[in-house]
């Protein structure tokens, strides 16, 4: 079953086009990460999927329904965590969850939601005095209290410390394995890599890549080899293949190549001939971040035509 369908969705605010002709489908149970820099249209897209606003043109369906016209029954099947926390500071986490649980036909028990979100220690504390990270957990617990079929997470870990992030990841992973369709926006590449089965990269309101973490990594291109000559004097003796890669400082070799073995053989031979140590040699794998930046940078300017 297809959980989400977007067909040629465009959203304009006045003269500003936040989302331009975006089309994608999300099968039920998939974990999709929407990745992109600030202003790429991630939140605008998510808010249309959540029903807060209608597309200027194009069609959206979430669980077969136009989100902007979603009924109560439809909203009962959608869970969401908004980009900024939105809680009544005067209630405890437990009371907040009990209040929201009462809105759903088949809510998760409050204690279970508290357990999943990792709130047990703070369940009876007023939300207003919780830390930012703890409040995000309450947001997450509200998002899942109704046993949603589709869960939207808008930057759920932004501003969290690493430990809180890890915990949120675990909670979200558990939901994903239980068959919930999840759409997550983030600008952390490692988050998308860790959690998602599929990555949609948005840039300037357009889909720049629709890929998987593995394929994105494969797209990353050459590895980077870096070696600093302790004595710049030997630079003159560099083999022809390496010499062009000497940085302007006259001592740093920075080589981007897919033929790692070949480069290393040349470098090792050169080092042996000149009795140089190789302790400072660095070989960097192609990073997801690099792949992501390559995808973003290869985008035409906002005014340019999309091919």
């Amino acid at each position, binding site marked *: 079953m297809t959980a989400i369908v977007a067909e040629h969705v465009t959203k304009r*605010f*006045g003269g*500003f086009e*936040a989302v331009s002709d975006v089309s994608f489908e999300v099968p039920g149970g998939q974990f999709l990460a929407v990745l992109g820099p*600030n*202003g*790429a*249209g991630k*939140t*605008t897209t998510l*808010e249309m999927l*959540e*029903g*807060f*606003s*209608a597309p200027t043109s194009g069609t959206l369906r979430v669980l077969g329904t136009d989100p902007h016209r979603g009924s*109560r*029954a439809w*909203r*009962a099947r*959608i869970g*969401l965590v*908004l*980009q*900024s*926390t*939105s*809680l*009544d500071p*005067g*209630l405890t986490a437990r009371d907040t969850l*009990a*209040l*929201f*649980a*009462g*809105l*759903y*036909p*088949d*809510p998760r*028990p*409050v204690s279970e939601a508290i357990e999943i979100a990792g709130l047990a220690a703070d369940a009876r504390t007023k939300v207003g005095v919780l830390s930012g990270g703890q409040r995000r957990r309450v947001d997450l617990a*509200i998002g899942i209290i*109704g*046993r949603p079929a589709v869960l939207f997470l808008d*930057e759920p870990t*932004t*501003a969290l410390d690493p430990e809180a992030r890890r915990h949120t990841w675990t909670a979200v992973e558990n939901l994903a394995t239980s068959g919930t369709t999840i759409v997550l926006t983030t*600008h952390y590449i490692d988050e998308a890599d860790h959690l998602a089965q599929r990555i949609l990269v948005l840039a300037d309101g357009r889909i720049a890549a629709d890929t998987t973490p593995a394929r994105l990594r494969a797209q990353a291109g050459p590895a980077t080899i870096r070696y600093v000559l302790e004595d710049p004097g030997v630079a003159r003796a560099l083999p022809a293949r390496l010499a062009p890669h000497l940085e302007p400082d006259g001592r740093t070799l920075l080589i981007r190549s897919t033929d790692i073995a070949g480069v290393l053989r040349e470098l090792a031979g050169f080092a042996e001939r000149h009795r140089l140590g190789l302790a400072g040699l660095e070989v960097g794998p192609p990073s997801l971040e690099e792949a992501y930046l390559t995808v973003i940078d290869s985008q035409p300017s906002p005014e340019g035509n999309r091919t």
Partner: protein
Amino acid sequence: MSNDAGTATPVVPRAASPGHAAVARLPGTPRLLAGQIGYQVRQLLANGRTLAIGIGLPVILLIASKGKGSAPDVAGYAAFGLTITAWASYGVRLVAARESGLLKRWRASPLPRWCYFAGAILATTLTAVIAGAVAVAVAVLLWGSHFGAGPSIQLTGRGTAAILIVFALAALAWASAATAVTSLIPSVEAAFPTLTLIYFPLVIVSGVLFSLNEPSWLSTLVTYLPAQPMIDAARNAVHHAPGVPFIPGRDAAVLAAWAAGGLLVAILTFRWEPHRPRGHAGTRPTRSPRPDVG
């Protein structure tokens, strides 16, 4: 009035047996509305400041006028407290809930949207009536049931019922109007001054605390605004003369019209989303010119 009435939102799934998901139905709206009223009342009561103004102010004014020996204006004082509760405090709370993103969160939930309004307005009305009842009770404690000089001027059981009905109607009118006005208020900081600037002159001109020698066009105008009919009706209930209805029809009609009109405007113009998204600094889209007003 138990303050946890209706707040007992079910913690466990309604159906007792497992495997009920297929037959689970959306909770009925009466239960949802009761839950909202309970939630809002609990929030109002938990916030001592709201109570301090709504109940405390009339009581302070009553005690302060004890020395004069003559009848205190219990109706006027209580009505003054009511406008603060049902207009200013309520309006500020509503703007704060909107600007903090709370309303947006409710809007995305399966709660029918009208239930949020209705819950907030009815809870405010309930609080305002309680505050009015306390003011009347304190007046009775201090002066007995005789207000004023003549034997005909006294607070009867029916008069008490009438004044509470007037308070309920007036609170409904003020809270509905406040709901309508909040969509024009851009921030929590602006809420209190804006709301105060509207109700305070109105309440004074309407003769809540003392009589002004206002121009006649102004005294005609205020009979169409919610403050003067509220005070007139409340005083009429306390200083009730035989042969006169306990609640003047015209006053009730003006208040009812404000309640209905306020609700209508609120439904048409209500704003669920904050004016400025409260994103974490540095994570907001840098180029978005303004948030979606839709």
